[in-house]
């Protein structure tokens, strides 16, 4: 039995390309509605609040807090087995949107609720996935 071991890349839509272009440059873009000023995640063709097509992008700070997390030790798809253990999280960006991500550059046991994290970008087949790591105190 042979499993497809290709790591997935995001299945994009024309209106989300800008987000992924941003991550290639190390930037986290958030879609905004110029009519009702909503911040939109994930990116849409029309604003989900007012149905305006008058949409634009702002660059997010890349700073966030962990809302919740779960560290996987087994029973993931074969294509992700080589990365175990890894931590999936929902993070709340300072700009007020919530994303799913990976928490990296720290031990799973050091991850906690409300931990401050910042975006780092992980390359996979030409796409740069926004992962987050603990904010390093300077």
């Amino acid at each position, binding site marked *: *039995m*042979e*499993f*497809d071991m290709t*790591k*997935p*890349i*995001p*299945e*994009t*839509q024309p209106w*989300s390309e800008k987000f992924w272009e941003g991550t290639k440059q190390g930037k986290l873009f958030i879609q905004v509605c110029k009519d009702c000023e909503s911040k939109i995640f*994930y990116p849409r063709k029309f604003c989900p609040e007012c149905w305006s097509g008058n949409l634009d992008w702002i660059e997010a700070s890349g700073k966030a807090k962990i*809302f*919740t*997390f*779960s*560290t*996987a*030790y*087994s*029973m*993931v*798809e*074969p294509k*992700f087995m080589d*990365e175990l253990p*890894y931590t*999936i*999280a*929902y993070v709340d960006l300072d700009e007020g949107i*919530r*994303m*799913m*991500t*990976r928490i990296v550059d720290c031990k*799973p046991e050091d991850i906690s*609720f409300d931990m401050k994290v910042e975006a780092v970008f992980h390359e*996979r087949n030409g*796409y740069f*996935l926004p992962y987050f790591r603990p904010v390093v105190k300077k």
Partner: protein
Amino acid sequence: MSKHEIAIIGIGEVPTRNMPERTQWDIIYDTCMEAVRDSGLHKNDIEGVISVTPQAQPTIAAELSFGKLPEELGLKGCKDAVSVNAGGASTSNAIRLAEEWITTGVAKAVIVQHVTLHSTIPLIDQINFFAKAGIDLQWEYPFGTTYNIIMGLMANRWMHDSGWTEKQMASVVTALRSWASRDPNSIFYQKDVPSVEKVMASDLLNTPLRKRQSNILGDGGCAMVIVSAKDAKKMKRPAAYKLGDSARYFSGTCVLRDFKKVAEGFRVTAKEAMAQAGITKKDVSLWNCYVAYPMAHPFIAECLEVAPPGQGGQYFLDGRMSFGGDIPWSTIGDAPGRGHTGSGVSAATYVETARQLMGKAGERQVKNCKYVYQNAAGGSGFNQISTIWGKEIK
């Protein structure tokens, strides 16, 4: 008086097992024929057939969607057939459609049926389907998430906010399996009920979820015959009358699901369904909850105000929801107790709701079972449907 006008008058079910030699059509024959016989009707009285769409089984899904069932079973009076798909919420919608057909005169008697045969789906196809269904392919899947991880994300936050302990969460499995061990249709029938310690000693899959807190896939199927409440009353047979139905949509994408909105949706739909039925929570004889994972049970127990805030986990640990406890709860043991049959666990839960109200639940029979709360949800939890069923029409 309830605005709903239907009743389940016949049920049929096969044991949930991994039995590849038992084909999908074997199960369909057995469950539908049993349900029709149980209803007291003749096969040719069935005028409508509604199938719950089997997940990850394209051949049988197409056969059912394109009308093969009435022909195969020789339902000569059938006027129409259809399949319904909303994942775990399919059966709720199949019953709603049956209600529409019955109240508008399309059909007098309708079969709602479900079949799933996981054991013949190639492992690769199972993995491909369950890895992606209900998980966003752009914003979630590339990060390596799974259904188990989605549950872990929710459970971790709930435990953080409510103070539920690992021991309390493990005790839910013990409670659900205490019912399942007494259910001839469960994959765990007559099997040892795992202790809290045994659940906690099982392998950690992803925090805080352990192996014994996840689900085993199984094959299964069931069927119900539904008629108007008026006809059910005339027939003077045991029946389960639909009395209330309320729903809320949350989100298709897991990460967009607002935890507070979900809790409110669970709470409000239960209240609305009870209000339609003209009852309060004190009248409910059985909380027949379907939330797929054991870790979600303390959450729904608190949303339904069966347990006070922060006490949901302790109620399970105290054995109050176990067989013999004072709060009859998920008497087939939900998916962790029954074996997960894809979109079929909610179908089996509806059959159990009817079975309890009809007084046919054997060892698991809830005494004086008069009103049942039953919920269902689809996908990774995109919605919540709360229903109330009664032994009699109000």
